[in-house]
Every structure is written in structure tokens, then in C-alpha cells.
């Protein structure tokens, strides 16, 4: 019991360390990239020298990224996530208002993407007809070749939910990996033999295929969360959906350090949670098999 508790504590510590490292690294990346000190307002010919200087000083206080990060962590411990430079609002409010929308988009988008991928991948593996496989490849390939911005625009044009755009951006990826994994598993001699003997497809799937591909598919499911988060950025920005993706895009354009650090930490947290849960479930399945 104690060892289990130690293990959990160890994992939690590792998670926290990765999170904090993610925040620190993102702050460093933003700080080192050119344009950190620059503000579009500097081009306003009305501003006099003092106002320009004040504008630069406002950014200058975050110049030392280590000092910025430590003061950020100190405040974050007290629940204050800072104030967005570009939007002038508390980061906490901004995130709180936008998380539900993005969460909904991601859940629906991912659900659709996975239903579509598994349907195509499984049917390809079952049928094993070269022409059908080529058609499914061409379909997923087409969506892979269409720029994400175009898919987002199409969803506006046809007045469908942005979640569908996210699904169409993510599904070619998940579909291809799962198709290849399932194809390989279905071509194993014992499964071919089982099918030849007329054992039901459902039985083969759940008894022989799923246990083999589950860890990989789960890992893929974990990573697909990151893909969906990435897809949410253009979709939200173009469809005018006020979620985290849109906020991330605004923050990046404005080099909004406090906002970017918080968003990175949030995204890292989601990524870590998704991937660690995929790992844990995968291990459990493997152990059960063993």
C-alpha cells in the first residue's frame, strides 16, 4: 500500500515538474524570439518619445525570463495567473470563460474523428479489397491535403459546427495509423486461420485483435488529443469561436508572455493527462493479458 502511495506521489511529482518545465521553456522560447519588445502601437505617429519609451518599458519588465517565471509561479501559487498584455484582462478569467467551449469542441471533434477513423480502418482491414483500400486512402488523403484553414472556412460556409472541422483535420491521422495497425494484426496467421474457420468477426475483433492493438491505439488516442488541440487553433480563429485556440493565436501574434505561458501549461497538462491515462490503461490491458 505504501509503495503504491509512493509511486503515485512520484508520478504526481514528475507530472508537476514536467508542467513547470513546459511553462519555463515556453517563456524562454517566447522571450528569445524576435519581436518580443515590439508593439504595433509603436508605429502610431502621434505617440511622442516618452509614450514610446513607456510602451517599451512595459515589455521590458519581463525581459529577464527567469525572474518573470519565478514571480509568475509565486503569484500562481496564490491563484493569480497574471494579466494578459494584449487584452488587459486577468488570464484566469480569460481561461475560465473559454475552457468550456474548447472542451466541448474537442470532445465532439475527437469523438467524430475516432468513429470515422475506426469505421474506415476496420472496414479496410475486414474487406481487404485493394480497390476499397485505395478509395479510403484517397478520401483520408484528400482531407490531409486540404489546408486546415480551408476546412475551417468550409464549416463556416456550410454553417456546420467547428467540431466537424476538427474531426476532419484529425481523422486522416488517426485513420492511417489505426488502419496500418489493424491491417498488420488481421494479417497474422492465427487470425486468418480463425476467419477461414468461420469464427464470428466480433469474436475475432474482441478476443484476438483488440488485445494486440489496444496499447498502440490507446497511445494514439492520447496523442490525438494534442492533434485536436492543434487543430482547434485555426478552427476557432477562423470560425470566430471564443475558445482557448483563438486565445492562443491572439497571444502568439501579440507576444503576450503571461497568456502564452499559462496556455502552454494548460496544453501541457491536457497532453500529459491524456497520454498518461493512455499509458496506464495500456499497461493494465497488457498486464491482464500476461
Amino acid at each position, binding site marked *: 500500500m505504501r509503495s503504491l502511495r509512493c509511486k503515485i506521489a512520484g508520478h504526481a511529482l514528475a507530472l508537476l515538474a514536467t508542467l513547470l518545465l513546459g511553462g519555463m521553456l515556453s517563456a524562454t522560447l517566447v522571450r528569445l524570439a524576435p519581436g518580443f519588445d515590439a508593439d504595433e502601437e509603436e508605429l502610431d505617429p502621434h505617440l511622442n518619445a516618452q509614450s514610446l519609451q513607456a510602451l517599451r518599458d512595459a515589455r521590458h519588465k519581463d525581459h529577464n525570463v527567469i525572474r518573470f517565471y519565478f514571480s509568475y509561479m509565486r503569484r500562481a501559487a496564490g491563484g493569480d495567473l497574471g494579466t494578459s498584455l494584449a487584452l488587459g484582462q486577468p488570464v484566469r478569467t480569460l481561461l475560465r470563460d473559454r475552457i468550456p467551449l474548447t472542451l466541448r469542441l474537442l470532445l465532439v471533434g475527437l469523438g467524430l474523428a475516432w468513429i470515422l477513423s475506426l469505421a474506415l480502418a476496420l472496414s479496410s482491414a475486414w474487406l481487404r479489397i485493394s480497390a476499397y483500400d485505395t478509395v479510403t486512402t484517397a478520401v483520408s488523403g484528400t482531407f490531409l491535403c486540404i489546408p486546415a484553414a480551408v476546412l475551417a472556412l468550409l464549416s463556416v460556409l456550410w454553417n456546420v459546427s467547428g467540431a466537424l472541422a476538427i474531426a476532419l483535420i484529425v481523422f486522416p491521422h488517426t485513420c492511417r495509423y489505426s488502419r496500418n495497425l489493424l491491417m498488420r494484426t488481421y494479417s497474422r496467421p492465427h487470425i486468418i486461420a480463425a476467419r477461414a474457420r468461420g469464427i464470428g468477426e466480433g469474436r475475432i475483433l474482441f478476443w484476438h485483435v483488440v488485445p494486440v492493438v489496444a496499447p498502440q491505439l490507446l497511445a494514439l488516442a492520447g496523442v490525438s488529443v*494534442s492533434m485536436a488541440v492543434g487543430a482547434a487553433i485555426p478552427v476557432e480563429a477562423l470560425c470566430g469561436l471564443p475558445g482557448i485556440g483563438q486565445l492562443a493565436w491572439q497571444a502568439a501574434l501579440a507576444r503576450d508572455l503571461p497568456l502564452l505561458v499559462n496556455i502552454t501549461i494548460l496544453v501541457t497538462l491536457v497532453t500529459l493527462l491524456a497520454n498518461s491515462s493512455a499509458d496506464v490503461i495500456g499497461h493494465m490491458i497488457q498486464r491482464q493479458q500476461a
Partner: protein
Amino acid sequence: MSLWRKLPYVLLALVLAASLAANWLAPAGYARQYREATDAPPSHAHWLGTDELGRDRFSRVLYGTRISLLLAPAAALLSALLAALIGGLAGYLGGMWARMAMAVTDLFLSLPWLFLLITARALMPLNVSPLVSVMVTFLLLGLLGWTTAARVLCASAGTLRTADFVRQARAAGLPGLRLFWVHVVPNLKPVLYAQFWISIPVFILSEANLGILGLGVAEPMPSWGSLLKELEGLVSVGEEPWKFVPLILLVVVVTSFQSLLSRREEVAA
């Protein structure tokens, strides 16, 4: 080999040959501006019409293919190899190594790499040749694009670590690296092929998107990515179906690539 099976080879060979012979096939240089015939529909003079600056679209597709068809697969190969090395080894070694490698992968998945790319642009001189710029871009894409596959590969390799045949080979005294190469890597192929295949169009599109940071192919040189970006002016594209030709061509190439990969997979299996 039946015609159906030969088709992907033929298609790829055709596209490659046409792009290499662009100097002879193209009716005009890719930068030549016909300013009297901007945004023109297809005609005898311009088979696929012209773009908004009056440049012959057919010529631009031919020249653009050259860059994208050579560099995108190279970058895709790089990312697949990195994924195999990081994900595969981590999964195979397991334990502490796997946890560390996967933590790094998770960080890679979450960090705002946009800023690294902006910094990379700043480190290059402004007067960099378009070819160097595009090569650096694809190199960066290859170096950053391995993460998804690495996670899946780690899971694949993890299941292999405890597989009977690997245990037997280990018991038979096969050295670790050789064992990894001979018994583990071949079993990672489904994921590696998927990674390679997906990366080609993804990198081609990313290259065009990085144009906003001053990376990628610089004007007036064309690339598939920059041609596909024309589709973003969606409002007008619906009435001008010839603008879809670059997209159709890319889909054909990508599908042909997949057919080749499936065949290799079948042979391997």
C-alpha cells in the same frame, strides 16, 4: 504485375518526370507575369489559367512539384527515423528511459514551436536564397514532426519487449542493439509507414503556412503548399474549379505513395 498494381508507379514516375522536365514542358517561366491576363480561366495559352499576378498556373504546378516532391518525402523520412529511434528505443528499453523519453515527447507536443521557427528565421540573413530557406524549413519540420509517431511506437515497442520471440532471442544471447534492429524495428513498420505517409502532405502544407514567418519558399518560386493556399480564397474558388488541380494532383501523389507502402507492407508481412 497487373495494370492496377503498376498504376501508382506509373503515376509517380509521370509526375516526377513532368516536374523534372518542367524547363521543356512549361509554357512559361514560373515567375513570368502576364499582367494583361490576371486570374484568367483556362485557355490554349494557359491550360490551368493564371494566378492573380497573371502567372501561368500550369507552369507553376510543374515547378512547384519539383521542390515539394523532393523535399517533403525527405523530411518525412527524417521524422519517421527520429520517431523510430526515440519512440522505438524508449519502448524497447522501458522503465525509467521510456518515462523520460515520453515526458520529453509530451513537452514537444505542447510547446509553442512557432517561436522557435520565428527565431530560426531571424538567424538567417534576409537575403537568403529561396532554396536554402525551403531546405532549412523542411529540415526543421522533419526535426519537429516526430512526436505523434514516437508515442505510438513506444507503445508498440513496449508490447514487443515482453513478446515471446524477443525473450527467446534475448535468451539466445543476441546483443541488444541487433535484437532491436532485427526483431523490433520490422514490427514497427505499420506505424512508421503511416508516419511517413501522413507527413508528406502535412509538411507540404506547413511549409506554405510558414511563409507568414518568412520561412519556406520565397516569391516568386512556387511550391505545392503556396498553390494550395489559393484554396483559402474560398469565396471565389467555388466558381473556378481549375484551382483545385494542385489539390487533386497532391491527392493522387499521396495515394500513389500509400499504394507503394501497402505493397511493401504486404511483402514484409
